């Protein structure tokens, strides 16, 4: 399915969807189609790291994957065993209390799933206590907090403090992401890493899981 992978990587939306339909009609399994998309998005992610692709390409690639999922979804039998790649780790994600920005978070969600993580996305404006309670229940390997506004520093710090209180801090890695994140914020918040773009965040996550 190299032609499908190329179409996605080259941002050719209509061509990619036409190829999806062609392959499905020819009897290709839905899972193989989605694997092709995952491979394509991996290439898109690498091009982002290399400074060839940027936010428009990440967004469009995500949309193309969503469109393909919509076509594929009805064909995936519910009693079929989950043939997806074995999950390499669990990732709890949300935009912290007080902040409603979600574009970066949604990109992280998509890329982390493609890279084999089980993602629990709490949405935006997530109350501190909820972040903590969900961490206790979900038992993630990594907690990812997103925030664009400077008020997110305080919310993120409170989440980390709460994780310490409930005995989770030593069990997880904490990563913070957003336009104003830097080493000062990271130190104040008590996170393990800070990033200003989604792809770098995924790299940290993979490194922590030994991949």
């Amino acid at each position, binding site marked *: 399915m190299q032609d499908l992978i190329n179409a996605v990587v080259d941002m050719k939306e209509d061509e990619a969807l036409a190829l999806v339909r062609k392959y499905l009609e020819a009897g290709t399994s839905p899972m193989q189609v989605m694997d092709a998309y995952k491979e394509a998005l991996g290439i898109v992610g690498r091009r982002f790291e290399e400074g060839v692709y940027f936010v*428009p390409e990440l967004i469009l690639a995500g949309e193309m994957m969503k469109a393909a999922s919509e076509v594929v979804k009805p064909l995936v039998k519910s009693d079929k065993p989950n043939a997806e790649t074995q999950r390499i780790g669990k990732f709890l994600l949300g935009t912290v209390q007080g902040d409603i920005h979600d574009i970066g978070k949604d990109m992280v969600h998509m890329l982390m799933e493609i890279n084999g993580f089980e993602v629990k996305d709490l949405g935006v404006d997530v109350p501190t206590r909820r972040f903590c309670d969900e961490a206790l229940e979900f038992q993630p390997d990594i907690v990812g907090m997103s925030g664009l506004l*400077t008020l997110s520093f305080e919310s993120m710090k409170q989440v980390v403090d709460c994780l310490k209180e409930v005995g989770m801090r030593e069990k997880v890695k904490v990563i913070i992401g957003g336009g104003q994140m830097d080493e000062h914020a990271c130190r104040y918040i008590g996170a393990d890493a800070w990033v200003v773009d989604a792809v770098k965040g995924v790299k940290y996550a993979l490194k922590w899981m030994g991949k």
Partner: protein
Amino acid sequence: MIEGWQKMSASQKQEVFLAKWASGEGIQFADDEAKAAYQHRAGLIKDAIQLKKAPKRVPIVPVTVFAPVMLFGYSAKQAMYDPHIIGKVLLDYSRHYDVDATFIAPMIMHGPVLEVLGYDLYKWPGHGIREDQGYQFVEKAYMQAEDYDHFIADPTDYWLRVWFPRTHSALKPLAQMPPLYGTMELPMAGPWLCTLGAPPIQEALKALLEAGRLSFEWIQALGPYIGQTFGSGYPMCAGAATKAPFDTLGDSFRGTTELMMDLYRRPDKVLEAVDRIVPLMISMGVGGAMANNNPLVFIPLHKGADGFMSNDQFKKFYWPSLKKVILGLAENGCVPVCFVEGGYNQRLEFLAELPHGQCAFIFDRTDMARARQVLGGKSCIGGGFPVSLIITGSAGEVEEETRKLLNAAAGDGGYILSIGCAMDEAREHTLKAFIETGKKYGKY
């Protein structure tokens, strides 16, 4: 109208307008000392911008929105519901922090007006967010892809009859209003006039009337405090604001997600739309500057930052229309002050295209040493101080970082000490350390 204005070059017009602003003409000063202080502060900024000579010291202009409110112990909600609180904070902040230009107090805006309009474009304290938080933009695709042609053909008509109804719930009925054009002749004026009388549209117009009345009352209350602040010797950091056309389209109309995909799906429409917006943004900036007798026009830059698009995409979609707005403002004697959010490390060479000494760039996450290298002697630069240190650091750390920044960026003039983010929060001890270090070590 100033004699010979039309024949002047952009630089000449800017000199006239800046000189008028820096003189404090028209301001009732508390005393001669306040007048001298105002002229001194505005003069520092004028010298930094024009690059003709180094000012006596680096002008210090932290850019803020809600931070002064929080610093003086009020909640964002209190400020958004009482203009006297904004006014008192404006006076106290300007004097206590002794900045060289103070914040644009009217940007705090007035909650009751938003309630009457059914304003959906932002969440504001007590309406969707906590009372201690400043307002937050609710970005969505308010403009659909099929709307491009209408927007391009007639932005005002689109704004009034499509965009208002989608963003201000009290104005939803305006979607039923026909366009104005029939009013050109009496026989054709009927449809518009009659529709104006339809009960839902009457209610929408009443909401507008009430919003206007409340806003007028609000600015009447806030105005004297602004006058008093000027009279105490503190200029305001801008007289008007406008936007890069791509940001206008991306922030308030298509939304980031849809617009970024439009670069692939309908690039020609994007180009037509941003070009169509250029004259609107110029007239918005010029009109505000003239009305407030302050040539500085604040332009926050959003979606062209490093990482948001490639240099090729920036060159094609973002830069040309922004450059036209910057040049258009300068042609009218205004001084564009771009607030460059995010990083512009990959874009500095574009900014270097602009004429000498006609605009200023306040940076956020751009490497300031590089900014100095590329833009020093061409355009005034500023900012580059991390807001994270103001919020999480110590006074000592702030002093050290400020000195490093001055060494890297202040050069032999053409630098404004500022913080890279329009602050909604701050801490007194770190902000004071920032300002005092600037005054102590920022002398030329």
